[in-house]
């Protein structure tokens, strides 16, 4: 077996020397086997009965933690192999002549290495997806969100601001006349005496899967709370619907007499509205509420590809690839320069960071700048530092080792600088992208949708890395291959 591997290794070195130097022929098969093993571990999870989310998390995160050690080992070993067979001190190193081949190979290898811990989650997700009826769940979700408020209310009182809510006119409401604002304490589940309608506090705002459902970001399983007013008949219907749907998610209802439950709840809330929070008994009609909620959590996580299933989300990988881009950039630099110069550059990076922090600290302590201008100041500072670095790189009077250290440091700091500028853009626009948290604050969404915003950030990162390779590869060749000024 070993001999076979050696023969194959020799064959690769003769036919595809660059592949051999980059270690692709060894690492890709090993990493693929490793990834498939973890995928199989994920797939092996028993879901005959849909498990609650906490159990799913225990299993998934356990595997993730277990995969971190092999990931670290594989990453370190790949680094060492590249230093041994592909660094500047080795005669056949590739980065100067094949910068993009080297860099992209590093990105692929590091991507697979760093992705391994999440592969188990992908295996789990595939298995769960087969078991879960997504359409059914989406249909049930609206019913469950509406109906849930009739079967469980933990808090019996809510606060209503006098100015904004018409229901304050009810005579039996207490009005808080505190200087902070006129607040009204009301029951969270009560009948409106004037109209006979049910007023309840529940998840309403986006309690349904909205029209923009795209599978991973817009599904609002547990959305914001709000006051809702419905007729009693509507309430009864919601309860019926809930009783039908909930058992599919282990939400067995103890008592299925809708009218009886409804009356009980009204009385229950009225009785306990003045009770201290911790002393009030739950308003709960669900057999095993934790199991029910946790099962919904599992469904939600599977459909939104969240939590332990995040590995199945394309969006996650778009951001996560930045990790492998960073590692690849570092390895590319290590392979392109002398290790001693890289060491000096680390010192430059650390001192630069320290200088920026000290400058910020002094500004904060002595308040030299008007408030809210720190970002602008830092961007100017970073720009000045970049210009100084560039001048030092070109300075003929500087020792070449120092100039090399500044070059490497600049390549390392370049992505941070680009992001800082992107941050400035972000900061100058309150709502650069559309996101649920900004919904009420932003009237005009500028430039991007939420997804586009991150795609732009991701694109900037990829382009900055490739641009860095293009520019700095030339600089390193000039510094290390061209005749040097001794």
């Amino acid at each position, binding site marked *: 077996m070993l001999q076979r591997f050696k023969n194959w290794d020799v064959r690769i*070195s*003769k036919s595809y*020397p660059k592949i051999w130097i980059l270690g692709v022929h060894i690492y890709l098969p090993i990493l693929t086997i490793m990834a498939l093993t973890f995928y199989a571990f994920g797939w092996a999870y028993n879901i005959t009965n849909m498990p609650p989310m906490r159990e799913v998390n225990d299993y998934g995160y356990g595997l993730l933690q277990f995969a971190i050690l092999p990931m670290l080992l594989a990453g370190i070993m790949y680094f060492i192999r590249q230093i041994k*067979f592909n660094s500047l001190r080795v005669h*056949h190193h590739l980065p*100067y002549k094949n910068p993009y081949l080297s860099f992209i190979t590093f990105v692929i290898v590091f991507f697979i290495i760093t992705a391994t811990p999440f592969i188990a989650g992908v295996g789990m997700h595939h298995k769960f997806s087969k078991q879960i009826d997504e359409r059914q769940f989406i249909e049930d979700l609206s019913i469950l969100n509406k109906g849930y408020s009739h079967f469980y209310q933990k808090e019996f009182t809510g606060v209503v601001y006098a100015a904004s809510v018409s229901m304050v006119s009810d005579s039996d409401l207490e009005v808080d006349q505190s200087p902070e604002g006129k607040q009204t304490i009301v029951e969270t589940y009560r009948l409106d005496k004037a109209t006979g309608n049910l007023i309840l506090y529940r998840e309403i705002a986006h309690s349904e899967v909205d029209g923009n459902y795209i599978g991973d970001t817009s599904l609002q399983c547990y959305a914001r709370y709000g006051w809702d007013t419905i007729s009693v008949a509507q309430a009864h219907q919601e309860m019926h619907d809930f009783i039908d749907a909930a058992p599919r998610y282990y939400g067995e209802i103890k008592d299925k007499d809708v009218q009886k439950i409804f009356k009980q709840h009204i009385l229950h809330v009225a009785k306990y509205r003045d009770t201290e929070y911790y002393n009030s008994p739950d308003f709960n009609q669900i057999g095993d509420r934790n199991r029910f909620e946790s099962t919904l959590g599992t469904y939600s996580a599977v459909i939104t590809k969240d939590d332990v299933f995040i590995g199945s989300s394309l969006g996650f990988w778009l951001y996560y690839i930045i990790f492998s881009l960073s590692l690849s950039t570092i390895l590319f630099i290590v392979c392109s320069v002398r290790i001693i110069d890289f060491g000096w550059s680390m010192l430059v990076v650390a001192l630069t960071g320290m200088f920026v922090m000290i400058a910020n600290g002094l500004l904060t302590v002595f308040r030299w700048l008007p408030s809210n201008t720190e970002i602008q100041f830092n961007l100017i500072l970073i720009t000045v530092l970049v210009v100084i670095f560039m001048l030092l790189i070109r300075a003929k009077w500087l020792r070449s080792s120092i100039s090399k250290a500044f070059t490497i440091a600049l390549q390392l700091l370049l992505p941070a600088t680009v992001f800082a500028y992107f941050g400035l853009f972000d900061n100058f626009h309150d709502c650069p992208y559309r996101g649920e948290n900004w919904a009420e604050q932003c009237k005009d969404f500028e430039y991007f949708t939420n997804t586009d915003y991150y795609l732009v950030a991701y694109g900037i990162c990829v382009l900055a890395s490739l641009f860095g390779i293009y520019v700095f590869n030339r600089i390193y*060749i000039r510094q290390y*291959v*061209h*005749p040097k000024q001794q």
Partner: protein
Amino acid sequence: MTEIFKVENLKKKFNRSGFQLSVDQLSLLAGSITGVVGENGNGKTTLLDIIAGETKANGQFHYFGIEANSHTNWLELKNNIGFIPQRIPRWYGTLEQNLVIKAALEGISADNIDGELDKLLDFLGLQEYRKLNWTEISTGYRLRFELARILIGNPRLLVLDEPLANLDINTQQKFLSDLKKLLAKKDYPLAVILSSQQLHEIESVADQMLFIKKGEVLYNGNLANISLDEEHVYELQLNDRDGHDTETYFDSMGYKVCIVGPYYQITTKQSVSIFLKTLSDNDMEIKYFRNLSNSTKRFFNN
């Protein structure tokens, strides 16, 4: 003969030490070996570093007939320069593996690599060591393996800095004869320049010698042209002569005498045969003798 490398008005000054190397003109021809000699710290390594494109210097440089300037693609140019520095960087993996990779990168097809390597390793006498690692071979073999690796790339200019240092006398001679054979064997233009302290060994193979002293080239040309004057220089060591002052004797004979360590260096117009006969007639027992008339060694004591 094809001119592989040429430099004119080479000047390199080190600001800190104040040392300056200057070479008016140097030309390396295809098929020739050029030896660079001189005392330590006189600029040999600097000169070779400059020729190998490692160190920047002022002057007009021509590599393979093309002038090197700020637009030169040194990455490409250096593909044609095989430089072996004094300290050879270590290899990782087996020696054979490294040579295979180099051959494959040079575009030799997978089917031909073994054959090409066999030929090269046979030529350099390295066949039995090919499976070993860098740490398992001696300095001499490391040098030869490095030479083998460089030769796979078919360089047109070989720059070897002190290749004979740390080699025993047999290995030195083997290495130099390999070089000579290599030049005869190569079917493309190749020039070799090497520095060394082993004057006699270098001179035995060099077509051109460069003697550098304190950064200045004192001699640059064929060995045959060194003794243009009629004076000959001999280096010798005699057995002890009880009660006789050898130096006074040499003076009385009209020889110019210089004592270099245990040796006398005699400058005279007498030819070798007459000089040796004179010594013999005066019952002098010669322990060691060398004719330096056509050797750069004569410059060392000036």
